[in-house]
C-alpha cells in the first residue's frame, strides 16, 4: 500500500482548518468509545486480565515459529489450505490465483485491516471481480472511495447527514432517512451480494494453533455471512495473530470486546476450523488461510518494536488519544493510525518511510493505560525518536538547534546571557526569531517566562 505518511503535518492542518466536521465527529465518537471501554474494564479485574493477555501474547511471539507450524498442521488436518505471503504483492497474488482457481466473479468482504494493508480491492477489481465491503461503515467508505479512518468504526468521521446524502444519491433511499431506514437500504443491496458471492474474504482476530481456529469478532453478522454463504472462504491473517491454545481464546474474545466497545463479547463470533464436511453443514466447500508477513518479522526482530505485535486492533489507543481526536485516521497516511500506528508503522515500513509519525504524540500516556495488552507506546515512541535522531531523519535545523542548546547549556556565562535575553523578550518571540528554532517554534505556543531568570531570583532570595 502506498503511504502518505510524509504529508502528516500538512494533511493534519488541512483537516483541522478546512474540514472541522471531522474533528467534531471523531472527538464525539472516540470519547463515547473511550467511556464504554472504561465501563467495560470496570466490570472485571481489568489489570489482571491485561497482565495475563500481555503474558500470553509475549509468550506466543517469542515462540512464534513453533505456533505457526502447529497452526499450519492443524488447519491442514481440518481440510483448510494454508498459504504464506512474504509481502503485500505475494499476498495479493495468492488471493488472485485462488479467485482464478475457484472461478470467482464476485466477492463479499468482512472488515479486514490486513486486506487494506495489502491493497486487495483494487487488484480484485482490476481482474473484473465485483467486490462488496459488507461492514456497514466499510460499505459507506467503498461508495465514497475513501479509506477507513478508525480500526473499529471505519466511517466515524462521517456525519449522519453525509450518509443520508450518499444513500439518497447511490441507493435511492429517501432523503433525510433515519439510521434505521438507511441501514435497511444497505441491507437490501448487501443481502443479494451475500447470496450471489462466490468468495468471502475476511481477516482474523485470532488464530488458535492447537485447533487451527480462525476467530472473528463482530456485531453486524456480516462476517458470519461472509464465512458461511459463499462457496470459498479466504481468511487473510497477519502472522502475529496466533494464540497457543483454545483455553486462551475466551479471555481474548472478552478482553478485545471490552477494550473496543465495552461489550462483554461481540454480538457474533465466528470460529472457523475448515471447510464444511458434515452433510448438514451448508458452509464453504473450501477454506484458505493466507498468513501475511509484510514487515512483521522485521518488527519481531527489532529490539523494542516487537512488543507492538501484541496489538489486538481494538482501537482503544486511538479512542484515548488527544492527538488522534483532532484529525481522525486519514491524516496519518497509512492503514494503522493513531498511537499504535505511530509505533507499528516505523517497524512495518521502515522508520524512514514512517517519519514523522513517532513525533505525532504529546507522550501523555493515555494510550498505554487503555491498551488491553499493555504495549508501552510512549516508551516506544521515544525509542523511535532516538533512532530517528541517530539516523539523521529529524530536520537538520532541529539537530543543529539541539547541538547549539547543548553548547550554551555547558557554558555558564553564555547560559546566563541567553536566559536574560529570553526572559526579557518572551520565549515564543525569541524562539520564532532564531534561525534554528524558528521552524520548531512555529507550531508551538510557549509559556510566558518569568521577568527574572531563576538564577537572578536565586541570588536575591525568592520572596
Amino acid at each position, binding site marked *: 500500500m502506498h503511504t502518505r505518511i510524509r504529508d502528516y503535518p500538512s494533511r493534519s492542518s488541512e483537516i483541522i482548518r478546512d474540514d472541522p466536521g471531522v474533528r467534531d465527529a471523531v472527538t464525539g465518537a472516540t470519547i463515547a468509545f473511550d467511556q464504554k471501554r472504561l465501563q467495560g474494564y470496570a466490570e472485571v479485574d481489568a489489570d489482571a486480565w491485561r497482565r495475563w493477555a500481555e503474558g500470553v501474547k509475549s509468550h506466543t511471539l517469542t515462540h512464534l515459529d513453533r505456533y505457526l507450524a502447529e497452526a499450519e498442521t492443524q488447519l491442514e488436518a481440518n481440510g483448510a489450505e494454508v498459504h504464506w505471503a512474504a509481502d503485500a504483492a505475494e499476498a495479493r497474488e495468492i488471493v488472485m490465483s485462488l479467485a482464478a482457481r475457484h472461478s470467482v466473479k464476485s466477492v463479499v468482504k468482512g472488515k479486514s485491516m490486513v486486506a487494506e494493508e495489502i491493497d486487495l480491492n483494487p487488484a480484485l477489481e482490476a481482474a473484473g471481480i465485483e467486490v462488496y465491503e459488507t461492514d456497514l461503515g466499510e460499505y459507506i467508505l467503498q461508495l465514497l472511495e475513501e479509506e477507513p479512518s478508525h480500526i473499529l468504526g471505519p466511517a466515524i468521521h462521517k456525519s449522519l447527514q453525509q450518509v443520508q446524502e450518499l444513500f439518497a444519491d447511490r441507493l435511492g433511499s429517501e432523503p433525510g432517512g*433515519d439510521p434505521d431506514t438507511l441501514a435497511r437500504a444497505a441491507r437490501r443491496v448487501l443481502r443479494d451480494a451475500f447470496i450471489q458471492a462466490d468468495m468471502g474474504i475476511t481477516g482474523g482476530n485470532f488464530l488458535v494453533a492447537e485447533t487451527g481456529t480462525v476467530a472473528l469478532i463482530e456485531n453486524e*453478522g456480516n462476517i458470519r455471512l461472509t464465512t458461511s454463504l459463499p462457496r470459498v472462504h479466504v481468511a487473510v491473517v497477519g502472522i502475529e495473530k496466533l494464540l497457543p491454545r483454545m483455553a486462551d481464546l475466551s479471555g481474548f474474545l472478552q478482553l478485545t470486546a471490552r477494550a473496543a466497545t465495552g461489550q462483554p463479547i461481540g454480538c457474533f463470533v465466528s470460529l472457523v476450523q475448515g471447510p464444511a464436511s458434515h452433510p448438514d453443514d451448508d458452509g464453504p466447500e473450501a477454506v484458505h488461510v493466507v498468513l501475511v508477513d509484510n514487515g512483521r*518479522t522485521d518488527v519481531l526482530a527489532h529490539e523494542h518494536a516487537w512488543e507492538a505485535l501484541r496489538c489486538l486492533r481494538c482501537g482503544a489507543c486511538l479512542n484515548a488519544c488527544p492527538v488522534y481526536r483532532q484529525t481522525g485516521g486519514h491524516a496519518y497516511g497509512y492503514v494503522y493510525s493513531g498511537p499504535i500506528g505511530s509505533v507499528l508503522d516505523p517497524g512495518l515500513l521502515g522508520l524512514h518511510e514512517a517519519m514523522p509519525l513517532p513525533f505525532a504524540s504529546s507522550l501523555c500516556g493515555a494510550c498505554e493505560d487503555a491498551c488491553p495488552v499493555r504495549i508501552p507506546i510512549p516508551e516506544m515512541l521515544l525509542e523511535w525518536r532516538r533512532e530517528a535522531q541517530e539516523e539523521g531523519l529529524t530536520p537538520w535545523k532541529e539537530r543543529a538547534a539541539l547541538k547549539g542548546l547543548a553548547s550554551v547549556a555547558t557554558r555558564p556565562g553564555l547560559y546566563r546571557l541567553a536566559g536574560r535575553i529570553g526572559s526579557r523578550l518572551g520565549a515564543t518571540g525569541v524562539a520564532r526569531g532564531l534561525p534554528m528554532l524558528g521552524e520548531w517554534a512555529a507550531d508551538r505556543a510557549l509559556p510566558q517566562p518569568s521577568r527574572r531568570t531563576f538564577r537572578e531570583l536565586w541570588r536575591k532570595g525568592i520572596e
Partner: protein
Amino acid sequence: MARVARATASRPGLPHPGALATPRSDNAVDAFVKRFTGSGGEVARADPELPPGEWLARFLRGLEPQVTGVALAPDVPPELRPRLQEAAGAHASAGISLAWGAAADTGSLVLPSTGTRAVQLLPPVHVVWLPAGRVFARLDDALLELGAGLPAAVGLHSGPSKSADIGRTVVTGVHGPGRCIAVLS
C-alpha cells in the same frame, strides 16, 4: 518460517502465564439470562405442560410481525418441530435452531455449523432452543468441552445483529437476525 525463527532467535522465550481466572457464577442460567438480555437478546421459557413442538408453534404464532414461514435446522429433533409452513432460510421470517449449549459469563449461544448456517443467519428472527442443563458458567468451559469435537465452524450469538456505523445510532438487524430469542426448556 525460517525468517520467523531467525527473528525470535535473539530473544529469550517468555513463559505462558497459565489460565485466566475469571469468576464462575453460582446460578449459570440466571447469569446467562442477565447477560444475554443485557445485550438485546430475548429469553422465553417453554411451558413444561405442553409438548415442545406445540409450545413452539404457539409461540411463533404469537410473534409480531406475523411469522409466515419457518426455516428449520436439520438437527432440530422431531418432537421440537412446530407444525407450521416451512421455508428456506433466505425466505423464512423465522429460523429455528438447536443450541449445542450456552455460556453464562458472556451471554452466548453456541451454535455448531451442522445446524446449517442459513437458518442461523438469514431470517429476521432467530429462535434458539436451549436444552436444559447446557448452560456453562464460563465461555472458557464451553469451548474446552466443545474442543474435542469441533465442527467446521461454530457461531457464538450473543444478541441481535447491531451496528452504530451511521450517525453513531444503534440499529438492529443490519445483516444477521434483528431478534435473537433463546428458549429455555
